[in-house]
């Protein structure tokens, strides 16, 4: 059982606050839901819409297709979305909503409560029990919600789409909160940043958390400064990170290379949005994989994660700090606007332990770049013991002093690149979903994971053989990661939110694997289940030949 609702209106009309109010109450009532938004890069006006899917089972994607209900706060919503209303769907027109607002002014002397009243209407439609509602809401809000129930009764909408609340104890997260929390769990105590959608809310979360935790957020004058500050803090002994979007990351590239050369641990979160240049600032895309894979001049190792679920986002971000330290490299968490702004439930427990940062005790003989059997030089920080910590952006000798000794250069390059072997051994394997015998496999990375998995369910329900493989780590890739799946013998469909099939190209480069088909989308919006399902179906139907 499911119910999907779209709330649309120009920025400032309250569609966003309705989403927040509704999802907050749904969470309190233990409802399964998924909420995401589509908004313009402006503070007032334009057209924004918020999409909420409520169900009696766990949901983590937009279904696509038609809406069960549309709340049109303005005419634009009517024009754009009404055609997508399910034929027995419910429609709240701008006129009707105007009525509600007028009555709210009369009855409560406050028009702004009309949004809460509309939330009440939605709750009545899914047949929320008013007593349970009363138990979980603040009393001052309750009367407005109750007014909504009354309207629903009047309009004969109450209980039309009854949904039982079946979720257990859970957290609600959007992708950015998951990443920010993951960073704290990874022991990150320093973040520097310059605001840029869709990464800004990671900074907000971290800065707020730092008010009461031993952590610091610094707003830098630009992204170049932000990453160099983070490298300074990391050198000084504190686990550090930056978060930005593709454009800001482009500015950071020289310092990524600096991290590579100086072997300074750092975690870099890149939230993708459509480019090039400023592109579509508030929309989504997976167009920066290549940027992140190849960012920074010169050759040095790196890890790139691309989490597909809230749990995975928390885990890989947390792990990033450990790996950045262990291998003294930059580690990336690659995400996107869709994941950043989508609100999801997580029922699993959160890991709450914070691994302590390890560093050695050294005397004056310490050499920051000592060539070791293990391939990893010992890491320590200035001012703790007698060791002097000297790090250099120029090629350097073991002590960290500039060198132009070209034989030593070879050994230093070998040392840095030698870490790749270790990184591959540590790589997180992809997640397989479905029947391993299925002849078709849908490959995805990053935020598409759960959309693809639901599409697979839908295909399988129609006896179309399909399975899914999701890469939460996109670099480095190793043969061990794909060995269990006999990909050579399967129809591979690579699903990506970009125009250039960047991950498919990487698979080809790394494994010589050729994707049979690519499903790409690059209009700035995320995929829906319906979309992937129908495109796969079309691709697999016998008439289609490539």
């Amino acid at each position, binding site marked *: 059982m499911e119910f999907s609702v779209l709330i649309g209106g120009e920025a400032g009309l309250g569609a966003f606050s309705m989403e927040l109010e509704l999802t907050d109450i749904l969470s309190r009532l233990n409802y399964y839901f998924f909420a995401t938004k589509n908004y313009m890069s402006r503070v007032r006006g334009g057209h924004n819409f918020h999409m909420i899917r409520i169900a009696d089972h766990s949901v983590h994607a937009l279904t696509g297709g038609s809406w069960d209900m549309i709340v049109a706060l303005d005419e634009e919503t009517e024009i754009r979305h009404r055609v997508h209303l399910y034929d027995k769907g419910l429609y709240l027109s701008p006129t009707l909503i105007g009525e509600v607002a007028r009555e709210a002014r009369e009855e409560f002397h406050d028009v702004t409560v009309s949004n809460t009243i509309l939330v009440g209407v939605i709750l009545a439609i899914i047949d929320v029990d008013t007593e349970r509602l009363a138990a979980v809401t603040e009393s001052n809000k309750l009367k407005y919600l109750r007014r909504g129930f009354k309207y629903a009764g009047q309009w004969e909408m109450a209980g039309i789409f009854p949904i039982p609340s079946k979720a257990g104890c859970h957290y609600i997260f959007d992708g950015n909160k998951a990443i920010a929390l993951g960073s704290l769990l990874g022991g990150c105590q320093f973040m520097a940043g310059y605001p840029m959608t869709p990464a800004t809310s990671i900074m907000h979360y971290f800065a707020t958390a730092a008010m009461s935790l031993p*952590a610091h957020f610094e707003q830098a*004058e630009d992204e170049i400064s932000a990453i160099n500050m983070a490298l300074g803090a990391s050198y000084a002994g504190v686990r550090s990170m930056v978060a930005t979007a593709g454009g800001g990351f482009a500015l950071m590239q020289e*310092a990524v290379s600096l991290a590579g050369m100086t072997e300074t641990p750092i975690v870099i979160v890149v939230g993708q949005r459509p480019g090039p240049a400023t592109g579509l600032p508030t929309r989504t895309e997976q167009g920066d994989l290549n940027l992140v894979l190849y960012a920074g001049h010169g050759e040095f190792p790196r890890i790139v994660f691309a989490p597909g679920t809230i749990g995975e986002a928390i885990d890989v971000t947390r792990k990033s700090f450990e790996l950045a330290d262990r291998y003294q490299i930059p580690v990336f968490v690659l995400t996107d606007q869709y994941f950043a702004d989508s609100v999801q439930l997580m029922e699993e427990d959160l890991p709450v332990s*914070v691994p302590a940062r390890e560093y050695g005790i050294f005397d004056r003989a310490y050499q920051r770049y000592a060539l070791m059997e293990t391939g990893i030089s010992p890491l320590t920080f200035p001012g703790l013991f007698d060791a002097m910590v000297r790090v250099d*952006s120029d090629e350097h000798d073991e002590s960290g002093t500039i060198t132009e000794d070209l034989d030593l250069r070879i050994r230093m390059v070998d040392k840095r690149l030698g870490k790749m072997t270790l990184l591959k051994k540590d790589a997180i394997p992809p997640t397989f979903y479905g029947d391993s015998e299925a002849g078709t496999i849908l490959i995805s990375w990053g935020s598409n994971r759960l959309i693809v998995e639901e599409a697979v369910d839908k295909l399988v329900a129609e006896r179309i053989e399909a399975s899914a493989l999701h890469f939460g780590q996109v670099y480095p890739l190793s043969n061990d990661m794909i060995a269990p799946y006999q990909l050579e013998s399967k129809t591979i469909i690579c699903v990506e939110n970009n125009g250039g099939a960047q991950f498919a190209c990487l698979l080809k480069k790394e494994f010589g694997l050729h994707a049979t088909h690519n499903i790409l989308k690059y209009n700035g919006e995320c995929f829906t289940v319906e979309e992937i399902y129908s495109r796969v179906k079309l691709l697999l139907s016998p008439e289609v030949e490539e």
Partner: protein
Amino acid sequence: MIKKTDITWCPGCGNYAIRDVLEKVLHELPIPRKDIAFTSGIGQAAKMPQYLEVNYFNGLHGRSLPLAVGIKLARPDLTVVSYSGDGCLYGEGGNHFIHAIRRRLDLTIITSDNQIYGLTKGQSSPTTDFGVKNALDPRGNENIPLNPLSLAINMGAPFVARGYAGDKDHLGGIIREAILFKGTAVVDILQPCVSFNNINTYQWYHKRVFKVDNTPADRYEAMKLAEQWGDKIPIGIIYRDDKAECRELAKIFREPLTEADIREHLAMKCVMMR
């Protein structure tokens, strides 16, 4: 120990004198060497930390200050000095220079100002005088030079000084005061470049520099002094405000995040616990 023969500066370069001064000052300071961290960018001057007994992070061209800011924020217990050339600090890193001062941190920012790009062999820097000819400005520099001292005062730096590599004792006093000063201290050092700047030579500076005996307490007076350039060039502490307050910094390094912190955080913050 650093052998003089390993140093890559040209014979006669003003940086040698500055290095001697720095070694002496660092030796005399009541701060253990292990607690001193230098950052630098790229250029001839930026090699300075390599030739000193200190911790250092020799970073990218223009980026010595963000590194210094990051180190200080993470570790207020360290004495942090950013060292670079005029091209590095005022050109490539000009934005950082402006904003690092605004952060009100206890940092020392020292520049070997040779009014030229040394390492890249003689192009105009932000402090090159108007009309000076060189390889990339064959018709003469068309730009007005940047005045680091008045800019620093304008941005709110509470300690602003100019030293001269040709007067070691005087320079030593300034650097010592700057490092001990609680707050952002900016020291621009006139540094003759014998290879690429044949205008601002030792003789040229010798004829012009004069010592400031009384540091103005008034910011606008200091600004006037800072603006002096040409026939008479003031050296010494141009502005000093001992009342300016530094920013309070949280202890983070000595207090790593713990499980208890996370539990408390989850109970009270944005993440909804149910």
